[in-house]
């Protein structure tokens, strides 16, 4: 809205206060946001701060267990596992955030159209979504990356495609139940067009459940990308990425070199866990009903 009037001002001030209130009210949310901030910081500053070059090999220092010099040990060609784990944060976060953003935007638009106007648009969209959902999602992602080629962009597209139906379905359902709500009809009586009603009245009300979906999906997206790398799709060695590192480490687990797979695996879990915890907090922030 461009016309900022005195009526809009208290709301602006209220939003910041509300975020602080949500963080204070629920310690789990506070911890989750703390963990999230840590991940973001490692993604942004990690590459500049790590003690070793993540790609530098050192054959004389291979397969060393964790020590003061190498917190997470070294791998089979002497690379520092800690540096690689931290540096990989940026790539993994980028993939998941980009994929979720694409599926959020595309899914929301499609879901709004199908849920509000219904009719044949709805039927066609539902058929398409059914078809995507008819594949086991990870398998579809495998197929897409295999067909389009092994690149990071293709991993992002594949992940976006398999997540999109969740958003489209969710938004469609949320829009559909509010299509004839009293406040929507009232907005029409106030002279709002369909598109305006959809954008200003209905869609914002779908945000709280969508935020939960976003946080779950960020987790899935990371798991998905790491899984694809694990089976050799997408990111290729020697790039530092959690899935590849676990895959490489897996070969050494039967001979007892546990640190190669454990630390990237733990980091991956930590990231997914953070996103899963984030959901409720994000929902509370976008939900005005949580204001007291």
């Amino acid at each position: 809205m461009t016309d900022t009037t005195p009526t809009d001002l208290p709301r602006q001030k209220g939003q910041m206060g509300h975020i602080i209130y949500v963080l204070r009210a629920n310690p789990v949310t506070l911890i989750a946001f703390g963990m999230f901030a840590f991940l973001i910081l490692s993604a942004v500053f990690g590459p500049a701060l790590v003690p070793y070059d993540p790609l530098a090999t050192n054959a004389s220092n291979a397969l060393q267990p964790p020590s003061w010099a190498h917190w997470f040990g070294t791998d089979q060609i002497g690379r520092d596992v800690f540096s690689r784990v931290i540096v990989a944060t940026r790539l993994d976060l980028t993939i998941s955030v980009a994929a979720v953003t694409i599926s959020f935007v595309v899914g929301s638009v499609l879901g709004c159209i199908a849920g509000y106007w219904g009719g044949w648009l709805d039927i066609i969209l539902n058929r398409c979504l059914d078809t995507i959902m008819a594949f086991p999602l990870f398998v579809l992602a495998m197929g897409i990356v295999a067909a389009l080629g092994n690149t990071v962009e293709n991993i992002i597209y594949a992940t976006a495609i398999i997540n999109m139906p969740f958003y489209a379905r969710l938004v469609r359902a949320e829009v559909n139940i509010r299509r004839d709500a009293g406040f929507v009809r009232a907005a029409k009586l106030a002279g709002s067009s369909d598109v305006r009603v959809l954008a200003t009245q209905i869609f914002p009300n779908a945000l709280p459940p969508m935020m939960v979906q976003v946080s779950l999906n960020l987790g899935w997206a990371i798991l998905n990308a790491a899984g694809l790398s694990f089976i050799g799709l997408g990111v290729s060695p020697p790039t530092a990425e959690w899935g590849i590192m676990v895959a490489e480490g897996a070969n050494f687990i039967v001979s007892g070199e546990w640190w190669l797979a454990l630390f990237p695996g733990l980091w991956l879990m930590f990231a997914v866990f953070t996103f899963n915890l984030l959901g409720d907090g994000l929902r509370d922030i976008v939900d005005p009903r949580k204001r007291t």
Partner: protein
Amino acid sequence: MLTVKDLSVMFQTRRGAVDAVRGISFEVSKGEILGIVGESGSGKSVTSYALMRILDIGGTIKAGEATYSGVDLRRAAERDMRDIRGREISMIFQNPRAALNPIRKVGHQIEDVLRQHAQATRYDARRKAIAAMEAVKINDAANRYDAYPFELSGGMCQRIVCAIALACNPRLLIADEPTTGLDITTQKAVMDLVRDLIRERNMSSILITHDLGLAAQYCDRLLVMKDGRIVEQGDPTQIFSQPQHSYSRKLVDATPRTGASVRDLLPKDMRAAAPVLNPSSAPILEVRNLVKTYAGKSGPVQAVKGISFKINRGQCVGLVGESGCGKSTTSEMLVRLMDATAGQIVFDGGDIAKIPARAFAKDPRRADIQMVFQDATDSLNPRYTARQTIAEPLRRLGKMRGRARSARIEELAGLVGLPLSLLDRFPHQLSGGQKARVGIARAVALEPKFLILDEPTAALDVSIQALVLNLLVDLRAKLGLSYLFVSHDLHVVRLLCDHVIVMKDGQIVEQGPAQQIMVNPQDDYTKSLIAAAPKPPERAIEIPRPELEKTHVEQTAIHDKRAS
């Protein structure tokens, strides 16, 4: 038979302990029907759950005694309670469809109870279940035995709930709002049935309801509850004619009844002089042969079958009917949210039925036809503050900006009696009555010529309903509005309207001046509607009481809080 002494119930919530019932005492004697009346949050339902020991998680009986035929209900072992429930004390609930297991045949649900209490064996359970269904006057019981709840009407579901409750011949029946959500003719049928069965079997009963009129008609004695306390008890006629406590007086006043005007609903000291209304005889809206056909699953369904009526400038017309009669469809078409299949809607001289609903948002007459919606909660966007909600039509249709708009919003808030301090609150921070006021302020913001009121008070407690109805009357006088008042409640319609239209199955069965319809109905359906409405006892002439009443504002605030 049942003695309750100093019963207190507490709920452990996230915000700390809440006292739902605060030390109430009463008795139910053999063969008596006791009514417990109160508005939402008064603790009346909690009392009954406490007696049955089926309180929700977090609820505990904090103190007091409840004795049923010598059994201490508070301390009895859970096993003994289970034998008492269903066999000695039974309950029927509001919203009968939800009260039945949706995926179990109703006959089996009755059998479950019979066999639990060893009243039937595997071999005769079916026969006894059918007998229990016949006892509650279900026709063709043997066939209904195999039905699932979703296949039955609301009234029929309530009969099944009664059959479950009465299958084992209990001595005490607790009915918790048994007819809320049912149509008025169904309500009468269910209530008559329950009363007859209770009398026939010489049972006792507790009827819990928010409807003072209904309680007065069916009960031998009444308790009035407020905030978990009993404020008054006694004979219905006496409570109606000479309420002792200020709260029960207010409740009695607010209950719509024959002979009372809309001003009579308010506490005495709040009654302003009746507003001067002068409807003209020039029509503002004329409906001709309006038809609406939906594409149903099994062919087209005609929801509105060619109706015609007229509304004059400044007039208030009531549109009455039970659920599914087409009254909501009609109002949707009039307010131009839905396209008519055929017919004309002549507004201010032009046929607006020709303009598609989608395009009407851009029509200059958009601001002239507005609506107040049924459910105040559903009709306010949870993300908008009261101020933003009222601003919406001003911004879009009124093209008002900045200070002018703020000033107008505050003026409107004053007009509908909404304190300015509440303007920046979100709907969930407002009470039911306050939300209704916001909805009304939004509807009158652009000074429409014609306003449709779609059951604007259906979700409100009676005391709040009284305030809102009076507000609507005042607005009509002040702004010279014409109303179409859509409602299922003839008593309420009569209070506000000059002219009444009765609809059934998409057709108008009768219309005429309100007084004439109420006193001398011609159509059988209208007669049954009027006969079905609860008839509270006549109010005796009041003796002025010395007790000081609270001021208007305070009372409004308190009750508005309750209503949320």
